[in-house]
């Protein structure tokens, strides 16, 4: 029951994110900055990756396997830690970009929404990437 609820929750969140992305793309048509398209692309990558994860978990659940066990928890902690370290370094990179690079090269600094979007989305992609890397390693051992 608990596992069913988790799968339903995952599907609902993915559906809401997809709906949000579609509404954002429809609403921003014409006046969209190119950076918003990059962020939308990152959201799409995350959406596809997490859809794959939810489908895979759902298949495992149908076979009678638990969605979460000791190993998956351990891997989640490890993935989260790498995502956290990456979020820190992405923030450092953004500070350099918004301060040093923009001042010296004359490029446009990112505003708060854009910077924070980059931190969340890129660290999310790294979390997802680590899922596939660590899962592959566990599978091979």
């Amino acid at each position, binding site marked *: 029951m608990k596992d069913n609820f988790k799968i339903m929750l995952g599907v609902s969140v993915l559906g809401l994110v997809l709906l949000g992305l579609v509404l954002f793309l429809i609403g921003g048509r014409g006046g969209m900055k190119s950076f918003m398209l990059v962020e939308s692309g990152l959201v799409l990558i995350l959406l596809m990756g997490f859809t794959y994860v939810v489908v895979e978990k759902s298949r495992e659940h149908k076979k009678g396997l638990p969605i979460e066990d000791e190993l998956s928890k351990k891997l989640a902690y490890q993935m989260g830690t790498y995502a*956290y370290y990456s979020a820190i370094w992405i*923030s450092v990179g953004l500070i350099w970009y918004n301060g040093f690079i923009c001042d010296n090269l004359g490029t446009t600094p990112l505003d*708060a929404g854009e910077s924070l979007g980059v*931190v*969340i989305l890129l660290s999310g992609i790294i979390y997802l990437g680590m899922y596939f890397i660590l899962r592959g390693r566990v599978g091979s051992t």
Partner: protein
Amino acid sequence: MDVKTRIALVSLLTLSVTAAMGIYLKNAWPLEAGEIACMGIATMIVLAGLAGLAGMWNSMKTGQPLKDEMTTKITYKAGYYSWIATIYIALAVGWVIDDIPGMAPRHGSTAVLLLSALTFFIVLGVLRIRGDFE
């Protein structure tokens, strides 16, 4: 990396952060509310760095290993919770940054960096005290 190199690197990092804070304080005085908050958080991070340094020094003196299975598990757990917190911190900072005096939109990533580092040290400290690694 042996303990002595690690101690040297962390000392260098702590010193350079402290020096950077000193230079910033000298140039930006008097500080605005947002800057005071940033300096407060940066000071706490330096203190956490010093606490880490003390731990490394103690480990070098007693000959105990710096890392073991339990500390690795605790660090991973703290990192995971800090990442979740970082996402919410980023959302909250984006929400309120325009209302804080002295904060420009480009300061968003600095605020996220400082607050998430602070969160990590707090979570790590709490988990270590509780000995919670499962």
